[in-house]
């Protein structure tokens, strides 16, 4: 539902054929991206995929080698970072150590030469939103990690910008605080309704915060879609493997007619919603551990042996073997399974993803 409203919305940030090279190394390869007004877009990928580089290009902190960037319809490809209408929050917080919290938050406004009372008013409003009023006279060294990151967000907030850029803002925080701030960020976005672009390597952050996720690899966007879409209908093998923990079970085999066949394991995929024909009969069969049905369900079913059992409390992960590959199941945390137990599993066709064996894209 959200997708339809966004796709009709105004593009807030447009990236056109962006190329970035560091010497011989091409980090971004003709990258295109539209971010809609008020959207929370997450750039997700493992380290070195170019996600932070892309964010730095949008911020104007890196000179692009080719292509163009538009913010609110203005070509800002060669504009200074401060002229782009962006605010940025960094992983290391990057607070100016010699200034107080107030000084940090008003620094950008002073550079804009705004009148004093306006500065005070904006800083006070941001402090109220982020609940950091008691900290205003402190130096950053006297703040905790979570407080520092709030101040860093406040520094972006006061500037009254169109687009917020976050570069792994929660990575330096401990797990509990990270979860708290994640919720606060989501609330902040709902309150402000600004466009936000958020870089992370943490898929939980991506899934929980994003309106849409752009999964990047090798300087290219692999899939740009809502979290549900990315989870349920991954566009290629990389995305399927990257999202989800444990990741999707993937088995390589042959497709003949409606039957998938791999090393002593054959399953009918009749009723699978093919988007195109495979280029050969080599295909990948994928299903998420949590989508495997236990017991004799509606679809085809198989008997497997539990080899490793990992109880997590809320769920239990069970490693079995199917078609010669490791095959994970996610079961209820209360189920009592021990290794060596025989289990009957069903593989419902509606939860299956098939990928082309050659170009590894979704069928």
């Amino acid at each position, binding site marked *: 539902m959200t997708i339809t409203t966004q796709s009709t919305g105004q593009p807030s940030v447009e990236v056109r054929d962006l190329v970035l090279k560091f010497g011989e190394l091409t980090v971004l390869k003709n990258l295109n991206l539209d971010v809609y007004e008020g959207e929370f877009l997450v750039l997700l990928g493992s380290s070195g995929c170019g996600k932070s580089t892309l964010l*730095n290009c949008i*911020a*104007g*902190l890196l000179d692009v080698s080719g292509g163009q960037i538009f913010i609110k319809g203005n070509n800002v490809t060669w504009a*200074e*970072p*401060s002229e782009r209408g*962006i*605010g*940025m929050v*960094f*992983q*290391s917080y*990057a*607070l*100016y*150590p*010699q200034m107080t919290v107030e000084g940090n938050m008003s*620094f*950008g406004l002073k*550079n*804009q030469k705004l009148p004093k009372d306006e500065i005070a008013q904006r800083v006070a409003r941001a402090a109220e939103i982020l609940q950091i009023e008691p900290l205003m006279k402190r130096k950053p060294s006297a703040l905790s990690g979570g407080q520092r990151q709030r101040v*860093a967000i406040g*520094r972006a907030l006061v*500037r009254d910008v169109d687009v917020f850029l976050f*570069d792994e803002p929660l990575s330096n925080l401990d797990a509990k605080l990270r979860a708290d701030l994640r919720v606060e960020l989501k609330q902040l976005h709902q309150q402000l309704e600004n466009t936000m672009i958020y870089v992370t390597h943490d898929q939980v952050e991506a899934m929980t915060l994003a309106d849409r996720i752009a999964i990047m690899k090798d300087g290219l966007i692999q899939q740009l879609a809502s979290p549900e879409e990315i989870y349920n209908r991954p566009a290629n093998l990389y995305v399927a493997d990257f999202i989800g923990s444990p990741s999707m079970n993937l088995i390589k085999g042959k497709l003949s007619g409606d039957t998938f066949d791999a090393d002593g394991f054959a399953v009918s995929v009749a009723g699978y919603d093919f988007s195109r024909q495979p280029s050969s009969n080599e295909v990948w069969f994928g299903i998420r551990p949590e989508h495997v049905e236990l017991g004799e369900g509606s679809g085809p079913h198989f008997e497997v042996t539990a080899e490793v059992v990992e109880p997590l409390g809320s769920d239990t992960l069970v490693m079995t073997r199917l078609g010669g590959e490791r095959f994970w199941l996610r079961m209820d945390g209360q189920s009592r399974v021990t290794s060596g137990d025989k289990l009957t599993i069903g593989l419902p066709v509606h939860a299956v993803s098939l990928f082309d064996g050659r170009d590894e894209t979704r069928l």
Partner: protein
Amino acid sequence: MADTASQMAPTTARDMTGPHGPKPRRALSGRNIMIYGTLIVVSIYYLLPLYVMIVTSLKGMPEIRMGNIFAPPMEITFEPWVKAWSEACTGLNCDGLSRGFWNSVRITVPSVIVSIAIASVNGYALANWKFKGADIFFTILIFGAFIPYQVMLYPIVILLREMGLYGSLTGLVIVHSIFGMPILTLLFRNYFTSLPEELFKAARVDGAGFWGIYFQIMLPMSLPIFVVAMILQVTGIWNDFLFGVVYTKPDLYPMTVQLNNIVNSVQGVKEYNVNMAATILTGLVPLIIYFVSGRLFVRGIAAGAVKG
């Protein structure tokens, strides 16, 4: 559980009462005697000349002629100090070291300020604003640090002469500022590189320009490295002899050159007490600088040298 607790209790109690850790070593072990003995000998080796200088400078000439250089003065006199400062003769001038002192101040202060101001901006630009050809520029600059001064002595004489600055303090200040550039730029570049890059990015997003970031963000974080640069430059320029003697004229000789002229004067009696006092006076400025800012010096050297 209860059993374990009761078994544990005595152990814990005993642990809490007695002293902890390994058995302390005796203060007078062979090892300690070796270490402290060596340290004391080395200290004496370094301190003895200083002692002789101070003691001699407080004696009158008759007492010095008795030849006991290690004996403390029988009668303390400050006359040699006064003479060294304001009466000792070099050539035709008989106003002591004071002239040289003020010349040195007039050379050192502007040289230090100019060289540090330029080198810090150089280092900042090289560290944060990667302009085209920055690496080549930096390599050339560093190469300058390895060229022996003697090679450039005469070309600079010609350059200064052509600019009409030969024999003036301004000329010498320019020479000192330029010669300080390679090492200071390296020092500042390494320090600024070690500062978090995201701080610089944040300031750019906040709309601060080249000078805004330099003055408002970088400078306040860089006190230690400025102290290091200041110490290096003050001691280096204050102790300089070669440039001072080559590029100025007798009226404008820095303190070191004048000290040499006093100590090595061939006329009359050698006044050892005056010479000693003059030498100490000349060395006093770097000494004071070290004492005042030694702690910051160590911090800054560590910050600038390890990273980058």
